[in-house]
């Protein structure tokens, strides 16, 4: 697990260097969100040292045991320890969430920049983006998953493709509005090369909305992964993920609700944390955006 937490961003990006406490007071959602998220990340990294056993060890003689001192969260239909599976499962959700957020942002940014700067490409790119956007992302992901075998990489790929249009539209919008700005006009008139304009004028202005958007994408990706795994088109069953654990427990939700409950709780809390963080970042980084949503 070498996922870089975006929680380090607000400290660097905050408008003024302020004391930690004041930051927490001013943006409580960032504080709450990042605290929860960091805890989950730590849990995921240190899962092997937190009293877990092999999360894939099957023992059908000990199946569907209720939560107890031996099995904190109980066992599933194959007698696997749910506590261990939930802890290890955090890795999948986090990796998927962050990878999709980063990949979709980077690719979306690139496509958005191209569309914003190259008039000829714009129409075609945007039609393609519209096309992808008009297919519900879950259906698109299911179809893409049917294409390949189930693997975490393919889940990431499928969700990323569905999320790219959101970022590229956002970036293109910013680029188009910035190009109308006098100082950009001036830079163009002065013969500044496009890459320089991008680095000097465009990127600083797109970064804030992209970071905010990326957190929402991260949250959405975690839910989509769970839904894909839930309907059996996601992470392969040999890797524990929250969606998988829920999918396997769904048939028994009436009698063994805890199988669904624990992963659902962890998933909900994690997504909640990411969303809170996104809300806070939006308030902090982009007050204009904060007003509209």
């Amino acid at each position, binding site marked *: 697990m070498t996922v870089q937490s975006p929680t380090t961003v607000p400290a660097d990006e905050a408008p003024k260097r302020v004391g930690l406490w004041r930051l927490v007071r001013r943006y409580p959602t960032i504080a709450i969100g990042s605290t929860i998220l960091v805890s989950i990340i730590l849990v995921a990294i240190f899962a092997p040292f937190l009293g877990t056993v092999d999360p894939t060890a099957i023992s059908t003689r000990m199946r569907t045991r209720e939560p107890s001192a031996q099995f904190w969260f109980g066992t599933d239909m194959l007698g696997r320890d749910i506590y261990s599976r939930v802890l290890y499962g955090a890795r999948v959700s986090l990796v998927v969430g962050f990878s999709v957020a980063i990949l979709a942002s980077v690719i979306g940014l690139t496509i958005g920049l191209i569309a914003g700067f190259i008039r000829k490409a714009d129409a075609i790119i945007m039609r393609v983006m519209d096309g992808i956007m*008009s297919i519900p992302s879950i259906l698109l992901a299911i179809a893409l998953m049917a294409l390949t075998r189930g693997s975490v990489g393919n889940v990431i790929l499928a969700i990323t493709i569905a999320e790219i249009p959101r970022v590229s539209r956002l970036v293109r919008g910013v680029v188009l509005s910035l190009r109308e700005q006098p100082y950009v006009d001036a830079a163009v008139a002065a013969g500044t090369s496009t890459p320089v304009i991008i680095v000097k004028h465009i990127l600083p202005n797109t970064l804030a909305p992209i970071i905010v958007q990326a957190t929402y994408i991260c949250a959405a990706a975690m839910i989509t992964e769970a*839904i894909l795994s839930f309907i059996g088109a996601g992470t392969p069953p040999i890797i524990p993920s929250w969606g998988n654990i829920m999918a396997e427990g769904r048939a028994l939700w009436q009698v063994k609700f805890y199988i669904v409950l624990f992963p659902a709780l962890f998933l*909900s809390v994690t997504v909640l944390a990411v969303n809170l963080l996104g809300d806070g970042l939006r308030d902090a980084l982009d007050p204009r955006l904060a007003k509209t949503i």
Partner: protein
Amino acid sequence: MFVYVVRRILATIPVMAVVALFVFSLLYIAPGDPAAVIAGDQATPEDVEKIRRSLGLDRPFVIRFGEWVWQIARFDLGTSIFTGLPVTQLIAQRLEPTLSLMVVTLIIAVSIAVPLGVLAAWKAGTIIDRTIMGFAVFGFSVPVFVVGYILAYVFALELDWLPVQGYTPISRGFWPWLENLILPSIALGMVYIALIARITRATMMEVLQQDYIRTARAKGLSQRTVLFLHALKNAAVPVITVIGIGVALLIGGAVVTESVFAIPGLGRLTVDAILRRDYPVIQGLVLLFSFIYVLVNLAVDLVYTLVDPRIRY
């Protein structure tokens, strides 16, 4: 206005073309074989091969794609490989449950979310506001199937107030129809409620600070009248936008909701078709969904002009 509408409608054609090509290519290169599923477990490889040939699945990409496009041009979506029924008929059979689910979801979501958003804006900064907004973030974060199962457990199994599953056509009475839709609509509507409540609050707060509202207040209109007459009307535009954006979300969510609540709608048809590789059905459905999405967004744009006279085309 008319020219604008025509232009917008024409602009949907390339989008639909992109979708069509994209989906067809995807399915073409996808592994999995409807013939193998049809033939069953006891069939020999030769049987499977013969069935594949009889379905025309052994022909090259260009020919199959060309045929399909030619069919669509004649408003024919083809025939399902499995059931032998026309895709249009399969879709028509499933349309009512899904549309009902979406309409009820929208009505429930809007009628819960807008008052909540207004209330939050009115009481901005108070504990009421915080609670509502906290609930909104929560609504975003809980997967639809979790909400679905919890609702079904409490209201159907434990309290026995509402049916657990299924769908009753509206032709068999309004209440039987609605009864089956309440739980799935709330489950599906969670995200929507959260989204609309947030945007209502945000725009209301903005509108409330504008001059003419202050003037209206100064004129002595009661607070409630101010809120509902002036502010809400102006807040309508972003709310409508969210409804437009949310359609794709709704279709995706319907896939899951329909399988949790056993509603025979388009969502389940899609999942079944993908799992069985019933290509004509998948293609027809994706085209339909894209078309609905494009259409709803077109409608949303047009409604803007009605709601907000400042927007002109």
